[in-house]
């Protein structure tokens, strides 16, 4: 198996601390090996659609889940979400929105665009880990189940 095929989780996160904590949480549940991380919306789209510097990936797309922060440089999270959900090659990929607050009005917008779930990044580190890894695991499982059918 080539390394590119291992990637099942794409983490789109511009805050390095949040990113590090997320990766640490996923690693604890042995999911970090399958994780790829990008720091802005433009790079996320390049990766997902196999374009730009990720052209080598071609149309091959075995992503199981995208963990998507909404506030991103260049292209924001909602636009990334819209691109994923309006392209027939990618619309099946589950997208989990990560947000800082329940009060975020973008949550509603994200659901309208087809987001599959959202998770509020809790201040409590443990809660954060649990929420992140559970969301990641859940979508990995769901996706694998549907792939088998």
């Amino acid at each position, binding site marked *: 198996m080539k390394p590119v095929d291992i990637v099942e989780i794409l983490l789109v996160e511009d805050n390095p601390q949040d990113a590090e904590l997320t990766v640490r949480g996923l690693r604890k549940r042995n999911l970090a090996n399958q994780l790829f991380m990008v720091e802005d919306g433009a790079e996320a789209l390049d990766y997902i659609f196999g374009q730009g510097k990720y052209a080598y990936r071609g149309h091959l797309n075995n992503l199981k889940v995208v963990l998507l922060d909404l506030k991103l440089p260049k292209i924001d999270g909602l636009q990334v979400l819209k691109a994923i959900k309006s392209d027939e090659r990618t619309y099946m990929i589950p997208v989990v929105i990560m947000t*800082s607050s329940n009060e975020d009005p973008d949550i509603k917008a994200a659901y309208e665009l087809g987001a599959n779930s959202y998770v509020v990044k809790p201040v409590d580190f443990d809660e954060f880990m649990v929420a992140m890894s559970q969301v990641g695991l859940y979508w990995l499982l769901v996706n694998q189940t549907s792939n088998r059918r």
Partner: protein
Amino acid sequence: MSDEKENRLLFLENVLASIPDAVVTADTQHNILEWNLGAEKLFGYSAAEACGRKLVDLITGGKAEIIDEIAYCIQKIHKGESIPPTETIRYRKDGIPVNVIMSVAHLWSGDEWIGGISVYTDITERKRTEILIESMNTATIGIQKAMEPGQIFTAVSKELEKIGVSCAIFALNESKENLIPVYLSYRSQYIRAAEKLTGLSALKFAIPIDSVETNRQAIRERKSVFLSDLKETTKQALPRPIAILADSVTRHLRIKKSIYAPLMVDDDVIGLFSVQSDDLRESDIPAITAFANQLAAAWQKAQLYEKARQEISARIEAEGQIRLLNEELERRVAERTAELQSANKELESLAYSISHDLRAPLRAINGYAQILVEDYGSALDEEGIRVCSVIVNEAQRMGRLIDALLTFLRLGRADMQLFSIDMQALAQSVFDELTIASGAEQIDLRLGVLPDAIADPFLIRQVWVNLLSNAVKFSRHRQPAIIEVGSTRDADHHTIYWVRDNGVGFDMQHVDKLFGVFNRLHSDQEFEGTGVGLAIVQRVIQRHSGRVWATGEVNRGATFFFSLPTKGSNS
């Protein structure tokens, strides 16, 4: 002929001559035999001209209907019938018609019919007076129907002009020293021509009462005055422009005679009425005076009516202005509302930014402190680990504070949807949820009868959650803890709900701090909390047009009240 007979004939001739009526005799062939002095005066023919000719050739003016009438009379006479006094018209030699009462009888000589005698009484003057009076009667009906002074003047002038009489109406000004022309009917083309000539308006000049003798008498002495030559007036001390106008008008119209009558209501002179015509008599004064009284009454009525109408329209105008002011006010309110809405939007984005930007570093502080404990715990002594846990706890507490603040902001601006709420069931269910974990056994809940409320269910639920959780929290050291919930109705159409506990209470001197954001009367060690719960309660109740307040005593419990408008009252 005997002397006696001669004398008698002479006597009869004298009688005929002295009768003011026209007396005419004719033979059976209708040739005129006698034509008295009265006939000469009435018809303008001398006896010499008339005798021997026929009536039908002299006094019909050539009018077919009169010729026919005479033929009809002759026919009746021949049948032996006489003509009783009849009103009719005959024409003078100069062609002017005269109104007459005519009667015709047979002349007999013994049993022999020898001719006829006709007598004509001149009623032209009577007729003229009748027409004048009838015209004024018609005008009276018109002015009684009129609602405005202008309509009254037009009604008067319209009728009088029909019979060749002009009129003028003057108002007496407030000082009672001047007459102001308000209506001049002198056939309008002359007035207009005169105004054009002089460049003046006939209706603009006040005429001092005493400058014209007739006016003076009419106004000061309150009697109607006859003037036989109008030119006399213009020679008097009229203001020059008026004199020019009056002179021009009278000359063009060849008006000579005039009657001036005061316009009086009760004993008050309000103006002057004057009529002008070639054909007025001093004897017309009573009729004109009577009419002036009618005119005065109608005019005053119209003035009162007009005044009332002006007051009404002034009021309508004022109402219009009030409406404009209201619209302006509404516009400003709308503007302010828009400003507030935009301020709210800013607040919302601020809240969002707080949630996002403040929470991210908190997550990092918390997370990295935990990493320190997990990965480097062996390198830290007990104190180092305690310091790390303080960092974690405080970061978490700040997270809760931010969340509470966001909740407070959100509840303040959430759209309200009003429903009827079973408050008793709601309070019970909130209490059950709050105590399901800690156990309700140690708490004696005394839930009274609570009337339904009209409110937003989500927001009111939050009020119960905050008040009941406070009651539970602050009474948890009591054995038993007693929580009472009840309601009363106040005089102001509000229902007051209250929650009372037997907990730690508070000092009334701090009561004003209770409902402030982040204001706490207890440390986190004593009683955990964010200091936002009661601020949320206040905010929600205020949005429902209600009020919150509290009473308490240290160590003897606290009571929190909130009021909500009842059904049917304005909110």
